[in-house]
Structures are given as C-alpha cells and as structure tokens.
C-alpha cells in the first residue's frame, strides 16, 4: 500500500496545497500536545528525578543517592525474577487475548440472533471493575465453596478440589486466564469495528478465485486487519506489562513471589515500604524495557508495512 505522501503527490487539485494545510494540521494536534506536555511530561521528569534520591513517600523528602537505587535494583534476584514473571505473564495473556479476540470478533460479525445484545455482553469483563472481578473469581476458584471446583467434581473431571491460586504452575495459569478473560473484549471491539469497513468486493473476488473460508480469512481478512492489530497488540502489550490490580488482588505475587511482577514491586516500594525513590527507579527501568520493545516492534511493523 502506497504511503500517504506518495498518494498525495499523485492526486490533482487541492492536495498540492499540502504545505499550507500543514499549519492547520499542527493546529489540530496542538491540544493533544499541550495536554501531553503539561500533565505527562512533568510527572515523567519528576519520576527520573525521584529515582536518584531516597524519598520517604508521605513527606516526599529525602536525600541524593545518585545511582545507588539502580545498583541495588539490578543486583537483586527479586528484580530479575519479577522481570521474568512479567514476560511470562505478558506473553501468555497477550497471546490468548489476541487469538480469542479475533475469533470472537469473527463470530460476532455473523448474523446471530440478538447480535447487539451479544456484542454488548461480551464487553462485560472489560467494563466490570477489576476489584469486583477478582473478588468474584477468587470466590469461584475457592476450594471449599467455589462453584468451579464443584462443577468439575460433579462431572468427575477431578477427585480433589484444585488449588487454583495457591500452587504453581496453577497460579500463573489462573492469572493469565483471568487476564485474558478481562481484556480480550478490547481486541474484539477494535477488530469488529475494522471488520465493518472491509470492502465486500474483496471477499467476492476471493470466492470467485476459489478460496474457501480459511483461504478468505488468511488472504483477505488478516491483511485488512493488519493495521488495527498492530496498534492493538502494541497497546495491549504495554498495558498488560504494566498491569497491577489484577495480579495483586488475585495472588498478591504468591505463592512466594512466583507471580510477582515489576508493577507489584513498584507499588510495594512506593506505598508499602514508603520508598518513593526506589519505586521510581523500578518504574524507570520498566519504562526502559518497554521502550526497547516498542521501538523494535514499531520498526518491524513499519518494515513489513512498506514491504506489503
């Protein structure tokens, strides 16, 4: 697909006035930039500033320690273990979110009875409050009075209640599953919206060429979804990586640090141990990791877009 710039030059008339309209374009983006600068840039800078100090959270007072926070952090096994857990959690839940999201979007694009209701119900995991969702899931997972174990026992699938959250690898798997359940509707809605704008002629042409349903999916649907999926994967990766509430409330990081991720460490440092400086250092390192990923990902995405 030709880039916008190339298409602009190819078209007659008003488009050669692109330079004059450039200033209108900057005007349109100005509010965003202003809000960004004022409200995000300042906390961002202050986070780096805080990370070079040892700060007591309630008073925000402290003293300079230079890179000592970073040195402590990078030499502790806690950090590296949390980083590894972070990757496992993010990769696992992201994969399920995308696969389930695309699959369900395709289903909800068909002519189903009460389709509007189905589409709005599928959003439920996404809009229910995380605290409530986790409390309900802990209830459902409970070994004594939880309905999941009860169903499985009655159906004869197991003969002892499963310890969903207190044992590995169950804990990580449960966390990944609940995360996928909670966030896959985001993918569903974004993909569903994009599916609406795929020209039906493409499908007609593919059918004429003899493509079956799988062929149509891989040759027509998927390429059309590429741009939305690129954005969705990027956003979900960043958000899943940063996820705090879900894991903290579900397992607290247990059993014994097996599901402890970096956002949990940041929170513990900032408000549990009242060490804002150390928390900021963890946050900055997390940012660096995500920055590397984002740059690599966008670079590859741009490369494949240009190749297409």
């Amino acid at each position: 697909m030709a880039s916008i710039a190339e298409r602009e030059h190819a078209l007659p008339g008003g488009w050669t006035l692109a330079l004059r309209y450039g200033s209108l374009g900057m005007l349109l983006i100005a509010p965003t930039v202003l809000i960004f600068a004022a409200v995000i840039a300042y906390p961002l800078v202050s986070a780096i500033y805080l990370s070079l100090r040892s700060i007591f959270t309630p008073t925000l007072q402290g003293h300079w320690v230079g890179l000592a926070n970073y040195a402590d952090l990078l030499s502790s096994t806690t950090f590296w273990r949390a980083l590894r857990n972070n990757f496992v959690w993010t990769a696992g839940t992201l994969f399920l979110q995308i696969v389930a999201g695309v699959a369900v979007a395709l289903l909800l694009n068909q002519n189903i009875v009460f389709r509007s209701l189905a589409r709005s119900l599928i959003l439920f995991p996404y809009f229910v409050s995380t605290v409530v969702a986790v409390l309900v899931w802990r209830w459902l997972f409970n070994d004594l009075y939880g309905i999941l174990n009860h169903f499985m026992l009655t159906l004869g699938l197991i003969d002892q209640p499963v310890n969903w959250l207190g044992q590995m690898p169950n804990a990580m798997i449960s966390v990944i599953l609940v995360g996928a359940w909670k966030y896959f509707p985001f993918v569903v809605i974004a993909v569903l919206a994009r599916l609406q704008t795929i020209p039906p002629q493409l499908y007609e042409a593919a059918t004429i060429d003899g493509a079956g349903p799988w062929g149509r999916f891989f040759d027509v649907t998927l390429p059309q979804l590429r741009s939305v999926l690129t954005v969705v994967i990027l956003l979900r990766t960043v958000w899943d990586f940063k996820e705090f509430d879900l894991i903290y409330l579900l397992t607290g990081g247990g059993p014994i640090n097996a599901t402890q991720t970096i956002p949990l460490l940041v929170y513990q440092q900032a408000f549990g141990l009242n060490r804002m400086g150390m928390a900021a250092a963890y946050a900055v390192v997390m940012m660096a990791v995500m920055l590397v990923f984002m740059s690599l990902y966008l670079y590859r995405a741009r490369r494949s877009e240009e190749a297409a």
Partner: protein
Amino acid sequence: MLARRFIGAGLLNVGTWAVVLAVIFPLIWMVLTSLKPQSELFHIPPAFWPQSITFEHYRVLLEETPFLQYFRNSSILAVSTTVLVIVVGTLGAHSLVRFSYPGREKLALLVLFTYLLPSVVLIIPLYLLMVWAGVANSLLSLVIAYTTFALPYALWLLRSFMQGIPADLEAAALIDGASRLGAFIDVILPQALPGIISTALFTFILAWNEYLYALVLVSSDAARPLTTGVMNMLITSFNIEWSLLMAASVLMSLPLIIIFAFLQRYLTRGFGVGGVKG
C-alpha cells in the same frame, strides 16, 4: 441444501451464544448472588440457584448509602471524559493522517510514551499539579487526569481507523468545492464512525472503572465516583460485605450493558465503504 444451511446457522448461533454465556458467567453469578439472602451465600457444597429471592440488598444500597450520589458522579465523569477525548482525539488523528508537517511521526510516537510509566509513580506529582491548579478534590481533576491517559490510545486507534479510509473520498468532496472542515464532517466522520464508537466505548469504560487516581485525587464524598465509593464502603481488610458488593456491581454493570447494546447499532456496515469506483 436448505436443511444444511439451517443446521449451519443453528450451530453458529448456539456456539456463539455458548461462548458469550461462558464469558459472562461471573455476571450471572453476581446477579444470582445479589438476590440471595445472606444465609445462602456460602453454602457448602455451593448452590447455583437461590432458594429464596430477596431485593433487600438493593434496597439497602439505594436507600442507606450514598450509592446514587456516586453513580451520578461517575456518569458525569465518564460522559465528560469521553466527549472531550473523542473531540480532541478525532481532530488530532485526522491531523496525523491527512496533513504533513515536520515531526509528525515523532509526535505520534512521543504521545505513546506516556504509557510507559506505571501510574503509581505518576500519581503524586499529578495530585500536586491539581492542587496547584486549584482543582484538587473535584470531578474536573479526574476528567483532566483521565483525558490525559485516554488521549494517546484514542489517537492511535482513531489514526489506524482513519488510515483505512481512502484518500480519494475526501479528494472527491474537495473537488466538488467543499471546504476541508466540511469534507471532514460529511465524508470522513461517517466512515470513521465505527472507529469513533469503539474508541468512545473504551474511553467511557476507562473513566467508569478507574480506581487508583480516583482514590488519591478525590477524597470528598461530593465528588467521589462509584469505584472508590463502593470499595471504601464495602471492603475492609477484616471483612467484605458480599451481598451489598454483588448488588452494587450489578447496578454498576447493567446501565453499561444497555447503553452499549444501543450503541452497537452504529458498529455495523451501515455506512459502507465503497463510494468511488475503480
């Protein structure tokens, strides 16, 4: 042949609805639990259906707690944030897609950088900023805060939807003498409507559900939204008021389900794609 199509359609319907019901199973559990009297909460072995139905918990919630006040606050907060984000975001996304000016790509990337820091570290500086601006402890501070989180992803989502709209459409309108803004409103907006609707949904949900910033930025009940209001009231470290919590969660969810079902009508192919042959 006809029979096969019926069976196919039947399987599709049953299969899809089975998936939907499985996904909303916790909601079903919440509704059933909220109708059970407290004595049926923790039956061992667990019972799915209530033995007796009671609306007592809903009554207590609506009459004896500030729940309705929190609901009103959350509604104002979510609607304001969504409107603000959609307006600023759509204009911004259009700019990123259609206009060229120096630093455009870098700007788009920079905006996404806002997501790299965990909120825990941002929250106190943000609160100090609100105090300095004189809007601390008000709904406005939350609208500002939520707009700043929502804007980056709204921009990126809307941008990707708008990139899918052929430039020829706008060019045709311009050739016909429409102004840039006119072409935008009459041609681009309808095409981008599914994308705008979905972005609006996400923004609404973000504003409705957010907890940590609502916790720190607002401490007075007059401006408190549902998330912190319900949590503070019903959850302490030693005890959870389960029945009231389930009733509150159902009341928090049902209006959203209804609104979203209504909005889904716009998430359809109604506005077409083709329009220019060739």
